[in-house]
């Protein structure tokens, strides 16, 4: 076993970290990724995890709920350890100020891997991004990463258990806000991705004709006030439209595959979203399906594609988690991951190719 998971729900940080150390035993950890409830003091957890695993690179973030092999948890810390047989090489960098464009991280990756980002083979390398979930900068950062490389970056926006006060990312002993951790891994085995959103596209199209992109606000769809056009597409009133947000978000659909943009609230006649949408983009109305069934189908498909799975990191939208909690399905969801070392967390946004909502993005290692 070259990938191993551990978790602790102890409230004392030192005891929690020691429990994780104990569970990992004499495993020779080269890289450790961890997700910690916002109940854990950010500076302490970053520092203690680095101190506990001095020969490993460590990175992670705060959450709104955690996932570990077979279980969905709250108020816990989950960790995934990789040894040298699992990961040939890795480099962890931090974008420390998301308001300022910087190439420092990309330059560091190029120096470390001794090749331009544009020449890195997406079948050989995978990127992981963990980003402040309250920064509102996710689409901008993903957009710029995508400009420089074909390496796929997958990840999630850090959470804080729905307090919406402060979210944190961690790297090599330090805690950061308004920041993103970027890691490029060179796994020893094949890997692939899961993007499952449990929505199907409907016929109704909504062309973004006026938007305030920096505020994630759509002012007009189809040259009509956005709230009115969205309500008309659903066949309901503007007053009733917010009741449909959870089950009828919209999405950019490419060859049948939706990239979900979730409405958050109606403000005057416009709609605020959980991620940015550009003018000129055609969106499709979506309808929710069964999260458990669609996730199982996605996992079965990758199992068959890879011929076996040694580890999964799951970035699962908090809105999906809330739906699972509301329906009493968290145990069923956790059970989908019972036979594979898995960690994950409930996110404030998911990243894969771009920034998306109401989705689970996963990296899956053979």
């Amino acid at each position: 076993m070259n990938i191993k998971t551990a978790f602790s729900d102890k409230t004392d940080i030192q005891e929690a970290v020691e429990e994780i150390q104990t569970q990992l035993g004499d495993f020779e950890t080269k890289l450790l990724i961890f997700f910690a409830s916002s109940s854990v003091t950010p500076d302490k957890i970053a520092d203690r995890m680095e101190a506990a695993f001095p020969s490993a690179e460590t990175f992670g973030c705060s959450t709104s709920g955690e996932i570990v092999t077979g279980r969905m948890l709250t108020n816990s810390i989950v960790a995934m350890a990789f040894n040298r047989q699992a990961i040939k090489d890795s480099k962890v960098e931090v974008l420390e100020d998301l308001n300022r464009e910087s190439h420092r991280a990309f330059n560091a990756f190029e120096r470390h891997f001794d090749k331009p980002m544009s020449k890195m083979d997406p079948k050989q390398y995978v990127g992981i991004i963990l980003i402040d979930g309250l920064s509102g900068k996710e689409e901008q950062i993903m957009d710029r990463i995508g400009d420089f490389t074909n390496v796929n970056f997958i990840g999630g926006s850090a959470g804080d258990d729905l307090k919406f006060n402060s979210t944190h990312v961690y790297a090599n002993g330090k805690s950061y806000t308004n920041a993103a951790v970027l890691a490029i891994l060179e796994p020893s085995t094949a890997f692939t991705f899961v993007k499952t959103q449990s929505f199907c596209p409907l016929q109704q199209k909504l062309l973004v004709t006026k938007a305030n992109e920096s505020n994630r606000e759509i002012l007009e769809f189809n040259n009509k006030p956005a709230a009115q056009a969205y309500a008309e597409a659903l066949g309901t009133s503007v007053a009733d439209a917010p009741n449909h947000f959870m089950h009828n978000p919209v999405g950019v659909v490419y060859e049948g595959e939706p990239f979900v943009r979730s409405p958050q609230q109606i403000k005057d006649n416009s709609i605020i979203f959980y991620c940015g949408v550009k003018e000129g983009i055609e969106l499709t109305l979506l309808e929710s399906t069964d999260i458990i069934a669609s996730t199982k189908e996605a996992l079965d498909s990758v199992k068959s594609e890879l011929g076996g799975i040694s580890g999964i990191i799951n970035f699962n939208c908090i809105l999906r988690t809330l739906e699972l909690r509301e329906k009493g399905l968290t145990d069923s969801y956790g059970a989908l991951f019972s036979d594979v070392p898995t960690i994950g967390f409930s996110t404030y946004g998911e990243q894969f190719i771009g920034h998306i909502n109401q989705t689970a993005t996963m990296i899956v290692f053979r």
Partner: protein
Amino acid sequence: MAGKIKQMIDAFVNQRAQGNTVLEGVVKIKLILKGIDPKMFTPESADDPAIIAKLEELMREFK
């Protein structure tokens, strides 16, 4: 003039994907998320200078 944007999109997708069909899809999705939907542009589409400038910048950056 017309059709330059479609030509540039095709060239950009080729530059990035090098014939890899999976990558072609990824590059097209990235363009859509930037507000440039490849399927909206044909050989008859007007040459919008703002979109042309954006595509030139993208091609320059990916070296």
